């Protein structure tokens, strides 16, 4: 989680730097009385780098995908119950033959 967050922050910083340089470029164009036809080359490069970094961060930071199969190894539903001290196992049920395949 940490690395994705840092990369996302870097991407946002690069984007804000690109925005700032575009603002300055527009100020320059206003002085020279020319039209704004597109951002400068280095701003475009910064935007592409920022987009790639942010995309990488957006795919890794929010978390991993968890498997939804109930049979997979990471979805075991077994756990010791809280009142296991009160459970009795020495009853008549222990004489029944086991009828299920239990996964240990």
């Amino acid at each position, binding site marked *: 989680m940490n690395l994705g967050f840092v990369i996302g922050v870097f991407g946002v910083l690069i984007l804000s730097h690109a925005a700032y340089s575009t603002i300055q470029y527009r100020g320059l164009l206003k002085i020279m009385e020319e039209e704004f036809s597109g*951002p400068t080359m280095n701003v475009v490069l910064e935007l592409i780098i920022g987009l790639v970094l942010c995309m990488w961060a957006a795919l890794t930071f929010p978390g991993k995908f968890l498997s939804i199969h109930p049979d997979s190894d990471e979805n075991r539903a077994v756990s010791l119950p809280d009142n296991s001290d009160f459970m009795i196992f020495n009853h008549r049920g222990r004489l029944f033959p086991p009828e299920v395949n239990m996964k240990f």
Partner: protein
Amino acid sequence: MGSSEKRPKDAMNDIPTFSAENLQNNLKVIQNSRTFLSIIAGVLAGIIGFTGLTGFVFYFVVMLITSVGLMAKAGFSADLYFDSWNRVLFDGFLGGLMSFVLFWTFAYDLVHIF
């Protein structure tokens, strides 16, 4: 639907069951990724200075790249993490559009007008 539970008796004859809380977690991950990326796409469109239809085309391009990225993250096997492919590809598409337009106008005003 509740969390995953299977009784041993019907382990043989129930096929379409899955852990719903994991599915919700996966959907939340997709939603977060798409929202963040539509905000970034909006800021980008504002900085470059797109106006009109070009901006929406840009948004669709970014969302397509996001879908490909999400499919790659799921390892191209949606069966393991979702119940249908449509969720991976189209969930959160239109909600992100609103965020995109909001940040697009915001960044455009910031950079080009003020």
